């Protein structure tokens, strides 16, 4: 059987950044497995601008951002196998791949980096009553049709869900001559970035209906109209509030789910909140030698942060291979999310190994104004920062200093919480 130091599953932004970081850390026996026929993942269809301001200090489109990483990987000579779909990962890091030329084969890896990304929640997850007519697309499918295939999915559009892809597609469809009647969002706040509401909806006068959902889809062969109702505080449609929007297309932007079927097969523990692996500060899962990064770990808003996170995973994987670090020997401290903080990544920290400054990413459960983000190491508050606005659609981060942890050797937990003052 083929043996490799590091196998990276997924050739999108996370997989490429992980591969580059592994090389930079001194491990060059790396192979990236990508099921598509090209590298770059979802960035290839994200043709809008706004990528890379943190990484490259300039504003790029998705394809341009991807091209920078592809070029860097090529320059280093990273081996990337396209058309290669991983069908199984075992807990002892044997990766089974299927490819049209080589058929089914296995690679024994010393370390594996999971970078499979996420996929969209489908209509089936929503329980909208009605027939199954043509004209209902996930926002990402519509994005692919318009930007890659050059096909318009429809002319009169209603969008359910205010995730970023839905907002981006509201603008995209409008630019291509479609009429977008409204974006309905069941929650009282948007799931997308504020900047996207400004430049994708407000710029074009597209209404965002908060606390509204689609209660009925009309049409048997093709969507003819959708009914949008206001919802109560239990998120149930309020009878009598429904408005009929004649349209031929309904786009769904109702959430992204990390794609962890392979992780589960390998025995990787998943968080019920992020639906991604539970990881420590090196982004290692509970299975020794298996690391995770990018949208398979938790769904990101920003590719720049994916790249940063993936570099940590790639470097950690290289260190694992080169140093034969025995993780199980070192003690770990739990990171607790409390008081409006829904989750943190990572959830465990190893004080002896952690970097001098560890970035901890999290999301909040609601919209909070003039609230403080606080971090406690044991009983001591080591961080207290005021935020004007925090929302579930925008990922937050804090930095944990190693010195703050080492100064308190008896600490058994670190807590991140929101405080009114």
């Amino acid at each position, binding site marked *: 059987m083929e043996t490799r130091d590091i196998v990276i599953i997924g050739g999108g932004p996370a997989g490429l950044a992980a591969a580059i970081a592994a090389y930079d850390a001194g491990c060059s026996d790396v192979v990236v497995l990508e099921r598509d026929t*090209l590298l770059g993942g979802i960035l290839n269809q994200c043709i809008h601008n*706004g990528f890379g301001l943190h990484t490259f200090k300039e*504003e790029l489109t998705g394809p341009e951002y991807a091209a920078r990483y592809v070029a860097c990987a090529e320059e280093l000579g990273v081996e990337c196998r396209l058309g290669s779909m991983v069908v199984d990962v075992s807990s002892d890091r044997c990766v089974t791949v299927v490819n049209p030329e080589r058929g089914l084969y296995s690679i024994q890896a010393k370390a594996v980096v999971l970078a499979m990304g996420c996929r969209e929640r489908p209509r089936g997850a929503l329980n909208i009553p009605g027939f199954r007519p043509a004209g209902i697309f996930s926002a990402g499918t519509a994005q692919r049709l318009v930007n*890659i295939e*050059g096909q318009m999915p429809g002319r009169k559009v209603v969008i359910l869900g205010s995730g970023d892809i839905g907002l981006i597609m509201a603008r995209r469809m409008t630019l291509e001559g479609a009429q977008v009647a409204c974006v309905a969002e069941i929650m009282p706040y948007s799931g997308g*970035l*504020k*900047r996207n509401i*400004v430049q994708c909806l407000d*710029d074009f006068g597209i209404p965002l209906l908060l606390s509204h959902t689609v209660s009925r889809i009309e049409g048997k062969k093709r969507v003819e109209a959708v009914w949008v109702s206001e919802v109560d505080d239990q998120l149930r449609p309020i009878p009598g509030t429904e408005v009929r929007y004649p349209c031929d297309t309904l786009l769904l932007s109702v959430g992204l789910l990390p794609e962890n079927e392979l992780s589960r097969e390998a025995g990787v523990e998943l968080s019920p909140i992020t639906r991604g692996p539970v990881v420590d500060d090196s982004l290692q899962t509970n299975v020794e030698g298996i690391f995770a990064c990018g949208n398979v770990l938790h769904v990101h808003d920003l590719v720049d942060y994916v790249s940063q996170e993936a570099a940590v995973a790639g470097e950690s994987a290289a260190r694992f291979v080169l140093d034969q670090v025995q993780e199980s020997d070192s003690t770990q401290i739990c990171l607790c999310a409390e008081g409006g903080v829904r989750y943190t990544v990572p959830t465990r920290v190893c004080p002896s190994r952690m970097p001098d400054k560890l970035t901890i990413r999290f999301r909040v459960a609601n919209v909070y104004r003039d609230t403080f983000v606080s971090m406690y190491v044991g009983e001591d508050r080591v961080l207290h920062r005021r935020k004007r606005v925090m929302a579930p659609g925008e990922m937050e981060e804090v930095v944990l200093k190693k010195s703050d942890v080492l100064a308190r050797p008896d600490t058994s937990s670190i807590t991140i919480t929101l405080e009114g003052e």
Partner: protein
Amino acid sequence: MSKETHELTCINCPLGCLLTVVVDDGEVVSVTGNTCRRGDSYGRKEVTNPTRIVTTSVPVVGSATQKMVSVKTAHDVPKELIFDVMRALRDVRVTAPVSIGDVVVADVCGTGVDIIATRCA
């Protein structure tokens, strides 16, 4: 004209800083709330001459791998010209090979800004 205060969300990057722009007699007096220089210039422009980068994709002929090539305005253009830019690109076709940065349409709509490719084909 008297003093006006505009509350804006900066669209330059996904941080989405909340800006407060004070305008006095048509002149921007102050921009606050931004965390970088781009925020300052966005705040000033947005209340006087709002601009946007326009991105779209155009069909490509002769590419083995792709039907479409993504393009953008090389710089921001006046917001009210977004649809004029789209109209100018409606019948544009490009021929492979295309490299990132290739000019697809020069000086679109008299803005002095080129449309450039953002993907190879």
